[in-house]
């Protein structure tokens, strides 16, 4: 038995001498790394860049909408703004956000593996992502693209002379990056678990990323082929989506949404995983109804494939189909509700504290509940007729994606920051930032529900004057929101150098990742761990801590 054990003492601790960050030096050691943790960091830096790029576009959108007249920029420019905003935010930020950064970093550690199953493919994913990103930037530099992120045919195929093919290539490539990430996760979860790590001992973060990975692998290729056909249509006019040649433009919609509806769950599921970890940790209590939460992720992954045509309710799909898809939409909303209630009950009889990640998690639950329930509005056929293509939808998806997923992402970044960097961030500033984002968010997007019901169409560069007041509120909110997002960038950057040393387990959490040093070793574990505790086994943690204390003494 080993004897040298410590209770990491934050005040005296120093950073571990050997860790994945300082194991090797130089730029090449990063660019050629196979270490999942380093790749995660590469992703973190790149998606942060793209988030702020997308945020810049959002800022321009909101500035234009400050006044009813289209006075800040030309209609064309505005259309390019929201297209680039949507494409960057979805494909280059939100889809890879949690899985490619936190998932990459944590999944192997959480299941006690030394790395993902295919480190080289993992690195390839990052390169594909960067190439995809470069193509997006290229289309931007060349003059932009104005299809909207949904590429509706025949508009995108025949009526625009912007850089559709460049962007299509970008999405194709970024799509394969996401496929490979998903593939890696699935194999890793199936094949790399440490001894004793059974399926039902896995942290819920792993479960939800696993579910998202299934959707990535099965859904993304359909987007790839749909987008390829769009490019071919433009290049040679193959006619499959061209009504003039007998093609059906709705076929594109079917193929596109067959991916893009599951994609919204690809985006949210990993966030669910983060929330499970955070809520459990800060109430020092196992997640209520572990199996229900785990299975609801899988249920979402399965049923998520059955509801895509709810994006096409008024587009001319048959009356029979709208009924079926609407009904299934209602069913797929239930597993999310199950999760929300299980998280709420996790707090019960816990010992709750309110660190920054927990604040974000609270924000997530509230905002996602609103966002999700307004999704039910849209899934309801008759209601959707009035709401579709208005700002109500814009509000709905920002509530789930920004209020939900982005909050979850920030919760996760704050939660695992000490693990990833070995440093703490200044807690009071970070709490302030969490509160600012929450307030800014409500101010930005709540008015959009109202203005949407009034009838303001989305993707409008100018609008009737009576909508202005609500738009001014929204723009004001976006400014607050922008500050809320810039703050973490600043203090997290600051903490890299000046933050307090975090120690191994600053939150006293149960996950395997918290039992190893921070930042971890390149090989994560010196010897393969043998898992006997369940996920969120606080009793086991208490026993372990007690025993270690004994050793020290």
């Amino acid at each position: 038995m080993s004897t040298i054990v410590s209770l990491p003492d934050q005040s005296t601790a120093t950073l571990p001498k050997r860790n994945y960050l300082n194991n090797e030096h130089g730029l090449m050691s990063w660019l050629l790394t196979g270490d999942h943790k380093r790749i995660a960091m590469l992703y973190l830096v790149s998606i942060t860049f793209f988030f702020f790029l997308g945020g810049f576009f959002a800022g321009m959108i909101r500035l234009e909408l400050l006044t009813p007249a289209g006075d800040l920029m030309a209609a064309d420019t505005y259309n390019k703004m929201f297209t680039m905003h949507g494409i960057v935010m979805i494909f280059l930020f939100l889809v890879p956000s949690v899985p490619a950064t936190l998932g990459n970093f944590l999944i192997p550690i959480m299941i006690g593996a030394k790395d993902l199953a295919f480190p080289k493919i993992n690195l390839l994913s990052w390169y594909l992502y960067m190439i995809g990103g470069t193509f997006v930037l290229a289309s931007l530099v060349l003059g932009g693209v104005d299809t909207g992120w949904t590429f509706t045919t025949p508009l995108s195929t025949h009526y625009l002379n912007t850089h559709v093919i460049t962007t299509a290539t970008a999405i194709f490539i970024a799509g394969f990056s996401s496929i490979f990430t998903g593939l890696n996760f699935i194999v890793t979860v199936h094949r790399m678990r440490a001894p004793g790590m059974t399926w039902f001992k896995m942290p819920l973060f792993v479960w939800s990323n696993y579910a998202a990975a299934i959707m990535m692998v099965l859904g993304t290729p359909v987007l790839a082929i749909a987008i390829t056909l769009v490019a071919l249509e433009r290049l040679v006019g193959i006619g499959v989506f061209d009504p003039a040649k007998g093609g059906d433009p709705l076929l594109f919609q079917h193929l596109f949404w067959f991916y893009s509806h599951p994609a919204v769950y690809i985006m949210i599921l990993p966030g669910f995983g983060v929330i499970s970890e955070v809520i459990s940790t800060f109430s020092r209590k196992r997640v209520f109804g572990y199996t229900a939460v785990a299975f609801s992720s899988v249920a979402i992954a399965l049923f998520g494939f059955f509801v895509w045509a709810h994006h096409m309710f008024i587009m001319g799909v048959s009356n029979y189909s709208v009924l079926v898809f609407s009904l299934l939409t209602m069913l797929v909303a239930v597993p999310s509700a199950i999760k929300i209630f299980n998280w709420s009950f996790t707090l019960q009889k816990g010992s709750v504290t309110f660190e920054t990640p927990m604040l974000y998690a609270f924000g997530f639950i509230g905002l996602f509940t609103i966002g999700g329930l307004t999704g039910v509005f849209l899934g309801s056929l008759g209601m959707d007729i009035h709401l579709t293509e208005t700002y109500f939808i814009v509000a709905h998806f920002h509530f789930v994606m920004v209020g939900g997923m982005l909050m979850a992402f920030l919760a996760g970044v704050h939660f695992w920051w000490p693990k990833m960097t070995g440093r703490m961030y200044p807690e009071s500033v970070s709490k302030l930032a969490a509160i600012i984002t929450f307030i800014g968010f409500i101010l930005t997007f709540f008015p959009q529900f109202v203005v949407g019901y009034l009838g303001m169409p989305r993707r409008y560069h100018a609008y009737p004057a009576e909508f202005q007041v609500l738009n001014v509120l929204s723009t004001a909110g976006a400014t607050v929101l922008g500050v809320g997002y810039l703050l973490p960038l600043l203090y997290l950057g600051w903490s890299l150098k000046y933050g307090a040393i975090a120690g191994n387990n600053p939150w006293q959490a149960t996950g395997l990742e918290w039992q190893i040093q921070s930042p971890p070793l390149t090989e994560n574990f010196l010897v393969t761990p043998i898992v006997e505790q369940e996920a969120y086994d606080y009793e086991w943690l208490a026993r372990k801590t007690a025993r270690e204390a004994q050793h020290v003494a």
Partner: protein
Amino acid sequence: MSVSTTISELTHPPSPEVEHSTGVHDHPFYQKHHFETAEQQREAASFGMWLFLLTEIMFFGGLFMAYLLYRNWYYDAFVAASNTISMPLGLINTIVLISSSFTMAMAVWSAEVRNKKFLQISLLATVVLGFAFLGIKTGEYSDKFREHHVPGAAFDIRDFTTPPAGSKEKPLPIDVAEKTQIFFSLYFAMTGVHAVHMIIGIAILIVLLWKSNSGAYTSGYVQPIENFGLYWHFVDIVWIFLFPLLYLINRH
């Protein structure tokens, strides 16, 4: 090293973790450091390959979906267009491809039984058959270019509205004949994507062939050959569907 008590350890190499700490490394040369056993690595790799094929199913699936829709909508046009592509060439290509699948299967077997010579012969045969397939395909494509049956500006429906003398085909009304373009779009898209897979496959095959020279795959390290075999067979399966769907819609 602890004495194994579990039955499963009798059939599988024990976990090498103890060797790690004592500094003894007796893994096969190809085992990556983050795997515990070579067996684990092999299973991970083949499962990974299967997942990749899953994405391929869905990738081609989108095309098949489009095909099914338009075949039902424009059946007559599809029949007429399908009858202009050469059944014999399609049949020969099917046979070529199935044979290459067979030689590939033999390559996997040779690697498993560590027969380097036969491995190389099988791989070479697969390469040759792959090239044969692409060669015939090129011939078919150039026919289509000559006949102006390639979708786009040069597309010409005259062969369908006024079939050449000697053809068994009935002339099609113009509005039907125009829909043949959709058939050819799908024909080129599907066989084109398939051909791209073949080209990638042949490139990888050549690398494998070259590397097999050093005996890399005939000393227990079957996994690259095996995984590539999965890929190659998958491409074969796609063709097994493409052949009847594109060439044999209604030949009588």
